[in-house]
């Protein structure tokens, strides 16, 4: 007996739907989920995928905004690899990233650990560490630019108490990195601390209780329980900071009067600033596009390195 010979009612046992409605319900079940998640993918296609592909396409051309477009193949990439200014920007970016991220992670970790304890006004204080994040980056930069001014700046004033000569924070390489790293840390430490805190709260209490019964000190508990259990959170935070740190733009730009030069000789010009300068000041779009792809590679490498480093934290087997 084949299915076809079954009476119609046997196939739709409960209710007799009109065929159109059945079709609609099938669409509803099968297609609707895709329709519902599609806005993200459409937006991503328009503002993520398309620019990505477009950038790749133009990175293969000598494309001058107010001029001509000529195929150069990998010419832009070859030129970039021997461009001192590009490497200068890479060194600056990585340097500032390390200078900003290492203290920031440590600070965020200990801040989170402190916030994870019981104390008065806990919620208010936990919220308050997020305040720097909601401040406009321009406002942050304006204030820090004044703090780090060579003449009449607060930081130089305080340093002068210890007999330090006025530092020109925009002319010397390492001081300029320090100033910008401070700006970045001020803004992001609280954010990372809150993420760490959330991670800490998922660690089961009984682990700590068992450790306490075994006589492990608070400090030991932190190193042996908190840190290893926090690894997934840490990977997220570090990857996030890597992406943010390697695409650093607003802080160093505002630090130099809104100029993407990053100092008279590019003392603190980041790769992102280099790209904007090539693209929107020299109008060498192809070159800028190629630099953007190299930055993408740099971020991939940075993320991978950090991932490998963080994975080892807390004594992996």
């Amino acid at each position, binding site marked *: 007996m084949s299915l076809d010979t079954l009476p119609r009612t046997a196939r739709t046992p409960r209710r007799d739907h009109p065929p159109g409605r059945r079709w609609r319900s099938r669409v509803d079940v099968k297609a609707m989920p895709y329709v519902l998640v599609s806005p993200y993918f459409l937006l991503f296609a328009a503002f993520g995928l398309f620019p990505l592909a477009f950038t790749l396409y133009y990175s293969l051309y000598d494309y001058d905004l107010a001029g001509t477009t000529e195929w150069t193949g990998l010419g832009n990439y070859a030129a970039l690899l021997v461009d001192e200014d590009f490497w200068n920007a890479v060194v600056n970016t990585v340097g500032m990233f390390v200078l900003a991220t290492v203290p920031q992670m440590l600070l965020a970790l200990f801040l989170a650990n402190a916030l994870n304890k019981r104390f008065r006004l806990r919620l208010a204080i936990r919220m308050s560490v997020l305040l720097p994040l909601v401040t406009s980056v321009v406002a942050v930069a304006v204030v820090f630019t004044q703090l780090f001014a060579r*003449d009449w700046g607060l930081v130089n004033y305080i340093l002068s108490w210890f007999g330090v000569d006025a530092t020109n924070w925009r002319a010397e390489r390492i001081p300029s990195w320090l100033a910008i790293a401070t700006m970045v840390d001020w803004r992001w430490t609280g954010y990372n601390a809150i993420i760490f805190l959330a991670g800490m709260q998922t660690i089961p209490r009984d682990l700590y209780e068992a450790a306490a019964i075994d006589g492990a000190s608070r400090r030991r508990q932190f190193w042996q329980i908190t840190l290893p259990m926090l690894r997934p959170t840490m990977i997220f935070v570090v990857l996030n900071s890597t992406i943010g740190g390697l695409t650093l733009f607003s802080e160093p730009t505002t630090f130099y*009067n809104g*100029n993407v030069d990053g100092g008279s000789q590019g003392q603190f010009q980041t790769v992102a600033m280099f790209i904007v300068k090539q693209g*929107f*000041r020299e*109008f060498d779009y192809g070159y800028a596009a190629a630099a953007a792809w190299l930055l993408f590679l740099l971020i991939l490498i940075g993320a991978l390195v950090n991932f490998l480093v963080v994975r080892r934290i807390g004594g992996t087997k």
Partner: protein
Amino acid sequence: MLISKRRGMAAATALAAATLAVASCGSGSGSSEPTSSGPVTIRVQTFGGGSNFGYKNAITKWNAEHKDIQIKEEHLTDQFEQQYWPQMIQWLTSGTGAGDVVGIDEGGMGLAKAHPEWWADLKEHGLESRKADFPAWKWENGVTADGKLFGLGTDIGGMSLCYRKDLFEKAGLPTDRDEVGALWPTWDDFLKVGQQFQAKVKDSKWADGTNTLYQVVLYQEAAKNGNVTYFDQQNNLIVDKNAAVRTAFDFAQKLTEQGLTAKLRNFTDEWAAGIQKGSFATLGCPSWMLGAVSDNAGEDGKGKWDVASVPGGGGNWGGSWLAVPKQSKHPKEAAMVADYLTQAQTEASIFTDFGNMPSNVKAQQDPAVQSAKNEFFNDAPIGEIFAKSAASLQPVFLGVKHAQVKSAIESVVQGMDDGSVAYDKAWQQLVDDAVKAAG
């Protein structure tokens, strides 16, 4: 704070305009005119330090007299080469974003001229008749190769030296402007007096930085070297061949090597603060710089600054044009505004109010201009200093890529000053970077 306030105002204005439009529809006059939708707003985009183009009073006056056309000035930034011009090029190429009337510095005119498609032809709006108002070179520079009139002259540079009277007094130097001018017939004299000054005064420097005076010397020397700077008339890069560049560079190097600079880059916030706080005693002052000084120094600086003649005599640095981008939705009204802002009367009042020397010949000959004194600068006879020499000023040719090359070179000249470029390597780097920027 400021921005949100402005936005609020804009929203309120839009709301008011909408209400008006509704009201006028409701009146039911039958034949509705398309122009009754409220006043046309003409956006005028400018750049430059302090009072920049000096349009404040002129715009207030126009707006009071023309209810149907309102001018809104958008001062975008202090810096032309690094910020204003790249942004403007982007807007002009993409066909949206530029104002209805835009200011262009001399350094951008080469490129502007090479792109007639960016601009509305002002001849179509009857402005060909303005030809007699301007010196031939100022007029010609606003006309493209195919004969399109796109730019009308605003100001010209001229040259003087601004100085702080109180600091000169502190150093035991004369303070009277004629005596001060007599101190420095040449730039070597200027350096010598600088050393005398620096020996007596420790907490202020002789000059602001290297860039301003580098420009002053460059323009003076350009006049002796065929009126060209970085490019020759055929747009070939001649940075390493033009003696004017080398002379100006050498002077800048001496200035910083002798420790006479406050190491400030012009048109930055710190430089503006330095003007106010007396970080330096002298500043190269083309006419338009007067407004930058008085506006940055504020009321407290009144009477502290004065104007003397410049070492080496004369020079013409800077000066701008107004153009109407093709993308403007109101080219007719925009042309009227550009016309108004470059009229003899307007340019004359800008000179007396702020200091920008008119390029308009009739304004230059205006007795009020010729006898003008600047209150801020101790009633310095700016008419005598600038207007008398205005007619004889020579135009300096600037190439299509002048803005980019200038920016690259200034970074090296500035880099010598802030210590990031070694003196003995600076010249080579200047040439290399210029070649790179000229691309």
